[in-house]
């Protein structure tokens, strides 16, 4: 039920592939639903991960926040699962669950003791087959989303600037720039018919991928999946929205006064490359050099050194994605909190100076080696979790049609050369392509102006 949102992760994990091989069995049901199974009997736990090929970027004008509102509706019951029972059945079987809405996909998971797999399959198939779309449920969830907005955004420092204002500055195409959490006005306007149409269009088996990772036996699992999902009818493939951004890129800068913030911050972004292009891998490696681990350039030169930054985070696709689910058009962007004895412009200049060093002097071989080791160890650590493995498998399928990237993609990061990093810095990270949002502490009464 959380909106995918990375506010306090100070460290970018460019985590992709397995150190040795994660087993993958991929097949497609007759109704077009793709299934990915990965057996690992080390711990009696399974993750059931359902990912739908629809995100907030398909929303229409007047319906901001709809994809997320719909995600909430998925927990409100279906033909055989009474309202409120979804949570109860997962939890009373010892599991955890959640759903989250992203710009380019929506996902749901259950992590369960492995002997409870059938419960998860029953729940996921019942809501894909027969979601309960009623006015009562919709009204109730509109209120829940509004309350979520008050809690997670309107009452917190930086959050409104990041979720509502940054995309407007970073993008020109409305599909990319509108608020993904949505306005109260648009949430109120959503109707039961909107929900029914969205469900029919996007929540069909052929627009979804089911991933199961963990303590399973493949033949039994396949049989159960066929029994639960096999006869859910497919739907025509939905049209994809036009997400293209205008080719002319001009520098942009704005100031946001944040009534809840006590420490100044700045967001800096640069329009990024095509997903999984050579420049994408090069920029992702550059990001590791800048912000990965305790010996990163930002840590050594800006937190130490200039003593200007207090915290930093950066990602391909920040704030809603990271390199594994970055989808163009998107930015390489960073969010920096800094000491008030510096001006936002000084911080922007310091960052641009770090970029200029790469553009001019390139990358030291030892430094790049360290970054590679960091990626390798980060990946082993993150792949311990069956949920994380399932997420990666599902996202590589939705974005690339290649779940096997979980095993092979690391190599694409590790083989980036110093010249490619330098080239990407020159091509993408120039002041002429830069977008800046300054977030300055404001006295409380000014809060009203921003809403």
């Amino acid at each position, binding site marked *: 039920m959380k909106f995918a949102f990375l506010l306090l992760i100070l460290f970018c994990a460019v985590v992709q592939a*397995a*150190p040795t091989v994660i087993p993958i069995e991929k097949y497609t049901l007759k109704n077009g639903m793709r299934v990915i199974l990965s057996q690992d*009997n*080390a711990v*009696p*736990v399974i993750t059931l991960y359902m990912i739908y090929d629809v995100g907030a970027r398909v929303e229409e004008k007047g319906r901001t926040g709809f994809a997320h509102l719909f995600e909430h509706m998925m927990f409100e019951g279906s033909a055989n699962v009474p309202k*409120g029972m979804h*949570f*109860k059945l997962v*939890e*009373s*079987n*010892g*599991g*955890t*669950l959640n759903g989250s809405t992203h710009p380019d996909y929506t996902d749901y998971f259950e992590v*369960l*003791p*492995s*002997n*409870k797999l*059938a419960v998860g399959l029953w*729940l996921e198939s019942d809501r894909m087959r027969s979601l309960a779309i009623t006015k009562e449920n919709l009204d*109730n969830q509109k209120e*829940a989303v509004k*309350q979520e907005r*008050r*809690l997670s955004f309107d*009452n*917190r*420092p930086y959050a409104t600037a990041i979720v509502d204002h940054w995309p407007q500055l970073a993008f020109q195409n409305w599909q990319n720039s509108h608020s993904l959490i949505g306005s109260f006005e648009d949430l109120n306007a959503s109707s039961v018919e909107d929900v029914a149409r969205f469900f029919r269009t996007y929540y069909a088996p052929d627009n979804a991928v089911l991933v199961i990772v963990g*303590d399973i036996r493949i033949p039994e*699992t396949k049989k*159960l999946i066929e*029994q*639960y999902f096999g006869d859910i009818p497919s739907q025509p493939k939905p049209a994809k929205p036009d997400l293209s951004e205008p080719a002319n890129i001009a520098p942009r800068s704005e100031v946001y006064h944040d*009534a*809840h913030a*006590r*420490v100044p911050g700045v967001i800096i972004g640069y329009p990024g490359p095509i997903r999984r292009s050579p420049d994408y891998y090069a920029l992702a490696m550059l990001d590791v050099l800048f912000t990965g*681990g*305790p*010996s990163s350039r930002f840590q*050594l030169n800006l937190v*130490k050194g200039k*003593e200007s930054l*207090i*915290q930093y985070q950066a990602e391909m696709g920040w704030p809603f994605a990271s390199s594994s689910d970055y989808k163009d058009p998107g930015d390489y962007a960073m969010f920096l909190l800094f*000491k008030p004895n510096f001006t936002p412009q000084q911080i922007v200049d310091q960052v641009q100076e770090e970029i200029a060093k790469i553009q001019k002097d390139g990358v030291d071989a030892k430094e790049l*080696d*360290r970054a590679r*080791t*960091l990626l*390798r*160890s980060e990946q*082993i*650590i993150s*792949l*311990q*979790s069956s949920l994380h493995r399932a997420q990666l498998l599902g996202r590589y399928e939705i974005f690339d049609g290649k779940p096997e990237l979980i095993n092979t993609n690391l190599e694409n990061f590790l083989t980036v050369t110093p010249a490619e990093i330098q080239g990407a810095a020159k091509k993408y990270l120039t002041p002429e392509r830069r977008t800046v949002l300054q977030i300055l502490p404001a006295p409380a009464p000014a809060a009203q102006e921003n809403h």
Partner: protein
Amino acid sequence: MRREILPFLFAGTTLMAQTIDRTKPPETPPVPSFKMPPVHETRLPNGLAIVLVEDVRFPLVSMRLSFQAGNKFDPQDLPGLAGMVAGLVTQGTTTRSYRDLAEELTSIGATLDGHASPDVFTIGGSVLSENTAKLLDLLADVALNANFPENEVQLRKQNAKQTLAAQRSQPAFLANEKFDALVFGSHPYSFFSATTESLDRMDRNSIVEFRDAFLVPNNAVLLLVGQLPPQAETLQLVRDRFGSWKKGTLPAEPAKKFPESKRRLVLVDRAGSVQADIHIGRLAATRTDPDYYPLVVGNAILGGGASSRLFLDVREKKGLAYDAHSELDRRRDAGVFTAVTQVRNEEVGPGVEAVLDNLSQMAKAPVAASELTDVKNYISGGFLISLETQASLTDQIDLVKTMGLPDDYLEMFTSRVRSVEPDQIQAAARKYMDPSQATIVVVGDAAQIEKSLEKFGPVQVEKAK
């Protein structure tokens, strides 16, 4: 990464449904329990306790060097000192600058960080298993030879002040700070964080004094979990690095005296808040109290997860809040029970009332058999899932070794939860969830919500700091 069947976990079996009845949930076997891996324990002559646990699932080794030196040992005028020392131990030693440490860590695929909780001071991290000896070098160096360079001390103080300012903009921080101050009284558990004043007073001397007094081998446990070298070799690696570490005389622990719980209502005024953060609770059982397991189960029924009473009533039925839950803060010498929700300003009266009603109900009526079974599964399953990664397994074992828990704590957790009876939950609720003894802290815009709170008793308004 070679993955093997864990010898210490029951392998699950997948239930086979022959025919599918979609109208009701499939029947499945009970949640399996946790089987503890073999633990090897020994002690060096200088008093350092050593705990080795084999975990062959991943090519990783996790380390924790933990001291009885958490924030409860901070001097009265220096709250936050343990946290400051923990942050600084990795910033430079007598032979390695911050840059040296950071580059060595990154180049062996390791992390190493200091952290102070209310009870325990921990230096911990993980490393690719082939580099185990190298991370042990760095761990020993920061534990024994951190030299707290003046520039790093100054930088950390400045940044801590800014971070503190940022935290003070969060209503939950203000609520927790006030709540801890009220329930712990003069006990140093009330030191929720450093203050601007304590940060000003901290200097290199106070930091070195704290380190010299507390970071000694007879006050420490070294825990290694993962793909370790053979036992004799691992112990030799440890002896080579920690054997010459000098014993110390341990300072006295703070007296375990806590104030009586009583009903009171404090409103922390945060102008411009669009909603009110409500925290209601009191001191409760520790992990070693006989009441502990009934309290754990009762707390989960009241406010654990999305099937709990608070979630279903406050969020789903009344639509007052996005989040409504309860939690246990389990410190070594005292526990705390708290129910938490956030409601919009105009609903603050109904919000407080709903939480108080649910608290009363816990003592009034016994929980139903099905509710009890469900919640026991919820707790057991969550416990099993929480042991999936090496880091979480390591933290759980570290907890047993540093919080004075019995050796069978992890292995017996599930069966102790399963043995809890309804009358025990009611007794625990009478003791710990009684509204007439609850401390109520609300953070919000006093101009908008003070009136609505008056029906719950005298409202003491304080400005947010």
